[in-house]
């Protein structure tokens, strides 16, 4: 019984949450429209959480993803406002993400600063840089090309499913694409397997010929890229960019990975488990909003559920 709770507690909890909202909101919750809506709402968090999983596999984490998302969004908007084409803005944002991530990785892997301290520092740096280049203002209106903001508002028509007015949002598709890429990368390539090995035992991996330093740095770069992608998605969705819009992402992303880790026997992060974590947070948010629960109460609840999930997976766990 206890081991069942430990193993499947998170999944059982997820189902309980869905059943709860289903009964409380019989007309609006379990509808195709709402499902698609949730998928779009969580797509940015999902991308950040999936790529956060990459560094967490090595036992590291990245606190700077939120401010990196803001910075990347602002960077794209600045490029747009100078009348460059859409792809230039996207390239600039992704480049900012990759360089910022490499910098994080360099600090952690080559200088040897603890990830917590290094990315706490860069969190502040990226955030400051976002304010600096944007002048502290929200960039919107004519500066954001409609081709860019249109992306987040459209999707693939679901006519063929008989769901006439509904679209599968492009943002959702993008998140699924990132999920598949990260899954293949982590579980089905030597690259990802080596990251897991580093997480298992850094020194042993190094002595077994794994190029630990460069791998660790590259993983941070990928997390930075993911954060920048999320920043672009956010900017597209709200057709504007401001230097604080990504700030909520970091804690939720880490919480999602932790929720996912409670589902694996050995407590390892897996990207599909992270997806469940993201879904739990997204469904909670959606359902509680619909029930018009106060947003402060919502925060207390979400935090409590994360703690509960991690606690239930640790009950009676034997130390190896």
């Amino acid at each position, binding site marked *: 019984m206890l081991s069942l709770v430990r193993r499947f507690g998170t999944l059982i909890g997820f189902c309980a949450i869905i059943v709860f909202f289903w009964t409380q909101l019989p007309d609006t919750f379990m509808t195709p429209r709402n499902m698609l809506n949730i998928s779009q709402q969580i797509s940015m968090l999902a991308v950040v959480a999936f790529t956060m999983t990459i560094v967490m596999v090595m036992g590291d984490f990245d606190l700077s993803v939120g401010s990196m998302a803001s910075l990347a969004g602002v960077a794209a908007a600045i490029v747009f406002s100078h009348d460059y084409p859409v792809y230039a803005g996207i390239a600039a944002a992704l480049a900012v993400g990759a360089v910022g991530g490499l910098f994080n990785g360099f600090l952690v892997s080559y200088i040897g600063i603890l990830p917590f301290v290094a990315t706490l520092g860069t969190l502040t740096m990226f955030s400051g840089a976002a304010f600096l280049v944007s002048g502290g203002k929200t960039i919107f209106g004519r500066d954001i090309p409609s081709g860019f903001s249109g992306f987040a508002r459209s999707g693939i028509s679901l006519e063929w499913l008989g769901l006439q007015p509904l679209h599968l949002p492009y943002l959702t598709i993008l998140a699924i694409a990132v999920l598949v890429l990260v899954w*293949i990368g982590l579980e*089905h*390539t*030597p690259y990802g*397997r*080596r990251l*897991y*090995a580093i997480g*298992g*035992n850094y*020194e*042993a*991996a*190094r*002595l*077994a*010929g*794994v*190029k630990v330093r460069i791998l660790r740095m590259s993983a941070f770069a990928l997390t930075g890229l993911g954060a920048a992608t999320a920043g672009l998605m956010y900017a597209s969705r709200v057709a504007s960019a401001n230097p604080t819009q990504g700030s909520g992402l970091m804690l939720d992303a880490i919480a999602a990975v932790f929720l996912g880790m409670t589902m694996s026997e*050995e*407590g*390892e992060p897996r990207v599909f488990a992270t997806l469940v974590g993201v879904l739990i947070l997204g469904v909670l948010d959606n359902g509680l909003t619909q029930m018009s629960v106060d947003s402060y109460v919502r925060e207390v609840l979400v935090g409590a559920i994360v703690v509960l999930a991690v606690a239930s997976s640790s009950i009676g766990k034997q130390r*190896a």
Partner: protein
Amino acid sequence: MTFLKLDHVTKRYGAAAALDNASLEIAAGEVHALMGENGAGKSTLIKVLAGVVKPDNCSLNIDGSKVPLDGPDDAARHGFRFIHQELNIVPHLSVAENIVMAQAYPRRFGVAVDWRRVHKKARAALERLDVDHIDTRRKTARLSTGDQMLVKIAATLVSSDAHPARLYVMDEPTAALTGQECDKLFAVIEGLKQSGASVLFVSHRMNEVMQICDRVTIYRDGRTIETTKIAETSRERIIEAMTGRAIRDTYPARAHAPAKEIFCAVEKLRTKHVSGLEFSLKRGEILGVAGLAESGQSEVLHAFLGDEKPLSGKVEFQGKQSLPSAPSVAWKRRIAYVPRERRREGLMLRRSIVDNAVLPHLAQLGSGRIFSSRRKERAHTGAIAERVRLKFGRLGQPCYQLSGGNQQKVVFARALGKTPELLLLDEPTRGVDVGAKFDIYTLVRELSTAGSTTIMTSSDLPELIGMCDRILVMRDHRQHAIVETDGLTPARLLQMFYE
């Protein structure tokens, strides 16, 4: 007089029984050996005694009355003290802190730690071991492994007076010690015995057991096979009882002499930690590296692994003028390494046997250039597991579930993934039982016959002499001598460490 009596101890993990109705009886003031192959259940029994593993069934009698054993607190109350195979010290704390850690620190005004008394207490504990060369203010990490062991033993001596120590459980205490340090430990054990305490001594080293133990209990497959007086048994009988078959405690014979071809030559090689290396190796030769503890043996291996940068000297190796610049380069050049501390440097304990075994060979076992192939990895690991005679449940099993010897075999399986050109073995049989040892010896011999050159360190001198063609003697991190093993005796070799 019987002090402790354990009966009907059963512990199952899933379908496999680690202990199956095992028993153990220890008299007051005796040194009792517990022997058995890896996986025989010794470690599990120790964990049961320590209260960290809850057995499915168990009855414990102390001084003839039944007592509970429900957790580490009970173990402490009964006066059990544990000295583990892998030292659990806190390296960056001082010696004194490591010794008094388990108790309340002496206080001044009820708040501040009274450091003078802490050090006094620690010194007193060390003095009981007749140790006066360890400064209690030093960081424990700076001590040699042998001294760390003494610190660990001292820590068990400063037990709270409410529950005086009555049984010392020593799990492979000599694995990391030099001969000299072992002798010191044996003197300490003798002292503990005189004071009326009992010692449960777990070791794979037959000589030690014969030398210091009064009785021996032998486990096989989780069952008690027999308990006998050491004086009334023999090595051969013990090994037979452990393995259930008669193996001689010897080394497989060399099939033929190594080839003439020179595989590697170093001249006046100096690195940060070792110097004066000057030797050449023939293809297929097995070179031993010996010396007192921490005289630079491991560093010789590290130089070939690319983990110890050469500062000067000439190298001719695999047709190149250089040693590998990093372990990743070494593995590419088919240099395989079995590290000294398998838990710290060897294994990802929570990861599976497959993941551990294929790690350096992931790229070769992939499908296409990008993807890895679980199917190929499993097939590869399955074949190698058979070659190293790994005992396991399933290939996806995490390594912490394996016994020490089988964990070591996983590390070997990794090294043998591609037939290595150079095999670097740092204490390859440390904490490994007789049967597994013999398997490892046989493997090294096979590899040597197939053309792999081997450099190995070991503190087990008969093993070095039995396995190696030549032995490089290190003293104070310098090459002292290089000798042929033909006709060499352990005593003569030992002498070279000191002369």
